[in-house]
């Protein structure tokens, strides 16, 4: 047999890539889903989520019924239009936060060892010396590591959908929640994979991954807060002018994106809405015609609106209340699509960039492995095929 007969027919770059991805995935999934562990973890996860949903119902339910019947004892006004929606909203908020937290813990755990473990177990050389492209290896590793996390998120959708039964969150709220969750899980996984390709030891890679996630979520919020604190009271700031640190800091922050998604479902101007409006650097609320919405940064003018400046007693009452204590009934649910789309775009961009860098790290240094290779005549007088004997 000559080498030409031996070598498989050359396939298109895309087919080679997808076949590499499926090869790696088949092997990884084979060992990961073997036995009862995966089944057990998934069952436990769903049980915990269901318990959280039930817990929210137990805690919020009686309170919501009271409020619906008697009104809110704190601002003395707004009786809740729908106690059921309060319960639904509480479940939605809890599940969103909990699932995001879980994604940040689990996704890196699966990826931070994906490549460094191969290096530690000395299997990487044999893998890299196959004709598979580094890109296929990296993406295959990523997808198989994320497969379980994605399975967990998807399997939890029915529990998230409980919310639809109570009201308080709409289908598009759940869609937003899922987009943020998936984007976060993939991004967290990619960060782990990147460190796994960069760092020799799994332990170090794991520590760096969680540190990075912490910096992205809590770190950027803290920096933003301190920065804002220094600029908002800086000399020279105009009276009533609201100054904040650059908003860009918050774009790659999954926590901020989730705060926005949850804030969109709040029936009243609650904690999430308050956090969101502060993060947007606006006044807590701008109300117009009975509709309150988070404001863009603007001169501090709302509290100076004269009592009779707007039409309708209800509006005046609300603005009056707001000027004293910013806790009005929101009246209508206002949708804010500011942070989460920006987060989604920036996190995907970050993920793609890190995947590309990881591919580069996996390819042997100095050996160019272009995605599409030009056929090259063999160096030497004769074609390679003739040089190999039968």
């Amino acid at each position, binding site marked *: *047999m000559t*080498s030409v007969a*031996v*070598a*498989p027919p050359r*396939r298109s770059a895309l087919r*080679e890539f997808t*076949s*590499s991805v*499926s*090869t790696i995935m*088949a*092997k990884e999934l*084979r*060992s990961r889903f*073997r036995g009862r562990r995966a089944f057990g973890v998934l069952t436990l996860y769903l049980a915990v989520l269901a318990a959280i949903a039930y817990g929210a119902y137990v805690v919020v339910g009686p309170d919501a019924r009271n409020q619906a019947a008697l009104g809110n004892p704190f601002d003395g006004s707004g009786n809740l239009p729908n106690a059921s929606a309060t319960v639904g909203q509480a479940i939605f908020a809890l599940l969103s936060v909990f699932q995001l937290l879980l994604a940040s813990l689990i996704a890196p755990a699966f990826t931070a060892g994906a490549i460094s473990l191969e290096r530690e*177990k*000395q*299997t990487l*050389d*044999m*893998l*890299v*010396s*196959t*004709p*598979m492209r580094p890109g296929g290896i990296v993406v295959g590793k990523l997808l198989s590591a994320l497969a379980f996390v994605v399975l967990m998120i998807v399997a939890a959708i029915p529990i998230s959908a409980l919310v639809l039964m109570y009201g308080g969150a709409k289908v598009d709220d759940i869609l937003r929640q899922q987009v943020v969750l998936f984007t976060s899980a993939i991004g967290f996984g990619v960060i782990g994979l990147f460190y796994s390709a960069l760092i020799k030891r799994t332990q170090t890679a794991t520590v760096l991954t969680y540190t990075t996630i912490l910096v992205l979520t809590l770190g950027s919020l803290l920096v933003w807060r301190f920065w804002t604190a220094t600029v908002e009271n800086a000399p020279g700031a105009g009276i009533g002018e609201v100054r904040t640190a650059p908003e860009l800091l918050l774009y790659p922050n999954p926590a901020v994106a989730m705060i926005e998604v949850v804030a969109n479902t709040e029936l009243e101007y609650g904690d999430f809405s308050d956090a969101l409006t502060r993060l947007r650097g606006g006044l807590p609320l701008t109300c117009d015609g009975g509709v309150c919405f988070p404001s863009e940064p603007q001169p501090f003018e709302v509290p100076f609106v004269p009592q009779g400046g707007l039409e309708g007693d209800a509006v005046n009452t609300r603005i009056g209340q707001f000027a004293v204590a910013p806790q009005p009934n929101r009246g209508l649910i206002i949708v804010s699509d500011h942070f989460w789309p920006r987060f989604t775009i920036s996190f995907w961009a970050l993920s793609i960039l890190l995947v590309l860098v990881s591919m580069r790290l996996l390819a*042997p*240094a*100095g*050996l*160019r*492995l272009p995605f599409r*290779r030009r056929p*090259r005549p*063999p*160096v*030497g*007088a*004769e*074609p*390679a095929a003739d*040089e*190999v*004997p*039968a």
Partner: protein
Amino acid sequence: MAPIIETRGLVKRYDGELAVAGIDLVVEAGEIYGLVGPNGAGKTTTMRIMATLLAPTAGEALVCGIDVTADPVAVRRRIGFMPDFYGVYDDLRVWEYLDFFGRCYGVQPSRRAAMIGELLEIVGLADRRDAYVSALSRGMQQRLCLAHTLVHDPDLLILDEPASGLDPRARVEVREILRALSGMGKTILVSSHILPELGELCTSIGIIDHGRMLRSGRIEEIERSLRASSLLRIDLLSDPRAATAWLASRSGVGDVIEGEPIGGLTRLELPFDGDATEQAELLRAMLEAGHVVAGFSQATSDLEEIFLQVTGQPAEDAA
């Protein structure tokens, strides 16, 4: 016919340190070529360059006529590589392990099942098909790893220390498998720091030390060229002084070392430039000159000896 491996002035530098300092290596198709040298001599680096895991700092390496830096993927399709330190995916079954590498090399699904059976037969693991890799002994894992290099039916096998860490029986098994593979027409580049291991297996060897190729060629040629300058041991019953003086007058004889006489028997050791015929001639002339020779032998010049002569130091100590 062009050689299957050809390197010209191969140089690899790590952080300024020279690991391979201009190696010219030629391996013809069908050979079993043994790369021998002390630890750190540059064997592994050379092999990793061939296996497209490292780029050479300078020089050229052609495998099957293809430049390893220009088209590494084409080279990978033609070689099977087994690194010196390797692990196995121990959470897979034996057949899954080979199936995985079959897929890595793009072996068609229809051919994979048959291929796995054949390979397990070759390496003697046919009855372990469904066992977990973790349940295999070290020697079996080594053979499995050897089998993985064959999934795509390559022309060339690059095996870095394939017998290291094995007990003598497992070593013999690996050697027999390599012989069988050679019989199937594979060219094999194999490395070891233990010479006798290669001596029984290889058709050619290259001795490398400090990143340089000291000797390279057919194994018999190397032995002959080195034996030409060998150490003779002569046990004398007659006067050693006279014999030493006589020997010193002969051409091709180096400084004679005279041992302590034991029971009238004195051992002389002398370097001698000459092949077997010349040795016989020396003995005949010595007897004719009236010296009483009780023993005349060449100090055993096996591969280990060659190695020491060429590298100038014991294999195990050199690093």
